[in-house]
């Protein structure tokens, strides 16, 4: 993951980080979506682990999780998804994103071991703040698995060092106080926030929550090291499904087209900023 961000920095452009829910709408389609992401221009993949009670997510990702669970997705299968993807793609970093309970029930040590075997590069666990680092963060870092932390507008300068202390890979700046899929705030405010975080860390700072279009991606990418897009992709998948939630011929191509557009946005962002 560090190499990927270093390469992009040399290239002079921010990373496009794409999120999708593992197992939505079913395992095989989800694998096809995952494989399509790097081909369409995604630099880092966030693989969502479905949870019955996603308390930081908006309706789109809640529904995606429900579709995945209904189709039989489990943490075991999400790791299998990563393993199958890795068979063809050795380079694109994969970050697992979700909530703690399924990991806790799976068993922390077994999870870390199996995640590394499956080719996972990092973890984002929404409900594990630094105060809970002993649970998963410290054991994961010890085994070489990145632990990516969320920083938010409520994370002030006094708290930032604590949040960054055991963070690796990149810092995920949540652009607003709220749930996934809300409206994007003023990009100029985000630029300031990114600069504020950068005075505390040398890690890349990626920005997410509310980035939906290539325009957004371009605007955010002007100041951030990476742009995270989640809900827009999940919505694109949802809109392609049949009424009973089955995938159609439009599901994978729809995601590909969206990500291509976002990728163009990200690639144009530094040019736009320079103008």
């Amino acid at each position, binding site marked *: 993951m560090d190499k990927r961000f270093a390469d992009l920095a040399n290239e002079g452009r921010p990373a496009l980080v794409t999120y999708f829910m593992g197992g939505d709408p079913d395992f095989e389609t989800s694998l096809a979506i995952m494989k399509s992401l790097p081909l369409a221009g995604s630099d880092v993949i966030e693989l969502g682990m479905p949870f019955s009670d996603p308390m930081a997510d908006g309706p789109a990702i809640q529904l995606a999780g429900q579709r995945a669970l209904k189709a039989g997705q489990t943490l075991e299968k999400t790791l299998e998804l990563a393993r199958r993807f890795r068979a063809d793609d050795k380079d694109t970093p994969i970050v697992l994103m979700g909530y703690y309970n399924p990991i806790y029930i799976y068993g922390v040590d077994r999870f870390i071991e199996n995640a590394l075997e499956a080719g996972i590069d990092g973890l984002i666990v929404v409900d594990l703040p630094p105060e809970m680092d002993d649970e998963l963060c410290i054991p994961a870092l010890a085994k070489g698995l990145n632990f990516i932390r969320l920083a938010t507008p*409520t*994370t002030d300068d006094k708290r930032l060092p604590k949040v960054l202390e055991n963070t690796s890979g990149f810092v995920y700046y949540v652009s607003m106080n709220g749930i996934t899929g809300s409206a994007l705030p003023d990009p100029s405010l985000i630029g300031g926030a990114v600069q504020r975080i950068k005075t505390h860390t040398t890690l890349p700072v990626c920005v997410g929550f509310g980035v939906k279009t290539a325009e957004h991606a371009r605007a955010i990418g002007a100041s951030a090291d990476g742009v995270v897009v989640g809900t827009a992709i999940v919505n694109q998948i949802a809109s392609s499904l049949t009424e009973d939630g089955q995938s159609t011929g439009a599901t994978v191509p729809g995601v590909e087209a969206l990500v291509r557009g976002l990728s163009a946005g990200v690639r144009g962002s530094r040019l736009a900023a320079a103008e």
Partner: protein
Amino acid sequence: MNETPKLNSFKAGPDEDGRFGIFGGRFVAETLMPLILDLQNEWSKAKNDPAFQAELQHLNTHYTGRPSPLYFAERLTQELGGAKVYFKRDELNHTGSHKINNCLGQILLAKRMGKTRIIAETGAGQHGVASATVAARFGLPCVVYMGATDVERQAPNVFRMKLLGAEVKPVTAGHGTLKDAMNEALRDWVTNVDDTYYMIGTAAGPHPYPEMVRDFQSVIGHEVRDQMMAAEGRLPDMLIAAVGGGSNAIGLFHPFLDDDSVKIVGVEAGGKGLDGDEHCASLTAGSPGVLHGNRTYLLQDRDGQIKEGHSISAGLDYPGIGPEHSWLKDAGRVEYVPIMDHEALEAFQFLTRLEGIIPALEPSHALAEVMKRAPKMDKDQIIVMNLCGRGDKDIFTVGKLLGMGL
């Protein structure tokens, strides 16, 4: 509240990280973390501030009507033919349940913190009504999240909340019960951290809520101690209370945890039986997991997905439990048992006819356990049961189940 616990005390928890043994903690999104630390800070100042305590006590006395009576249920005792049964009459409180004890304490804290908007989750609607009540009393807007199923089965409380000026937001996710309402309240909170105070209704959630709600509810147990000494000159032999999230129970239990002679029993919703998924007995039939900010016993599947559960009583219809109860179970200090829907329904009718008290369906579960235990005990033994809510809100549900049109 401020007494120094003994060494090896059951009252020592939580530690500074909010842990009761392995249970409790602060499993929340980063957005909420600074706010929770603020709350903890404000709470530790407030609990040792005589002015705060005096204001709370004044409201408890003159607004809620505390102390609530400790009532000797003479006819019930005769009928059961064993231990003397006393009821702690928290159903006589203003708003009809113990929930007001906690809401008054929390709204004073919200005021201290300069918050201008109150949100709450509710199951049976008792906490929603209490939240709407204190919000009206202090002139703050209030939004109550309530599962759509519960909105339907607790219609009288929904109307009360609206009369009190609160906005009731039905939540359709999941089964539309308390768990889903709590998810939605957390989403609201994460979005409106700056001005909003989240008034959690039970002794669960991230630290400091379990401790704080327990301390506000412990007024119940402290009063029982004094009242029992006055009535009988000794402590009771047994305490029995219903547990959903567990706030009325921990409020009664906590002041007695270090009294070895007092046996303590918590009653969970056994629903339609523990064989299938139609119950909410998280302590009896669940396993430790992490949900809604704390580690505690949960109803969950092998993949760590939370189950929905079922109970006749909306207030007990929650697949988790306050973390201190989880710890007390594992420590062996409190015994937790399930009571089925039909047993609670029988107890509800029994008490109504025998004592002229219509209990809520939640304490009807505790009563069903009293009815099992009292006959097997000696006549000089004493049980105190927390009659934590009145049943007016449940008459439509019960009417339907008994086949009576209203």
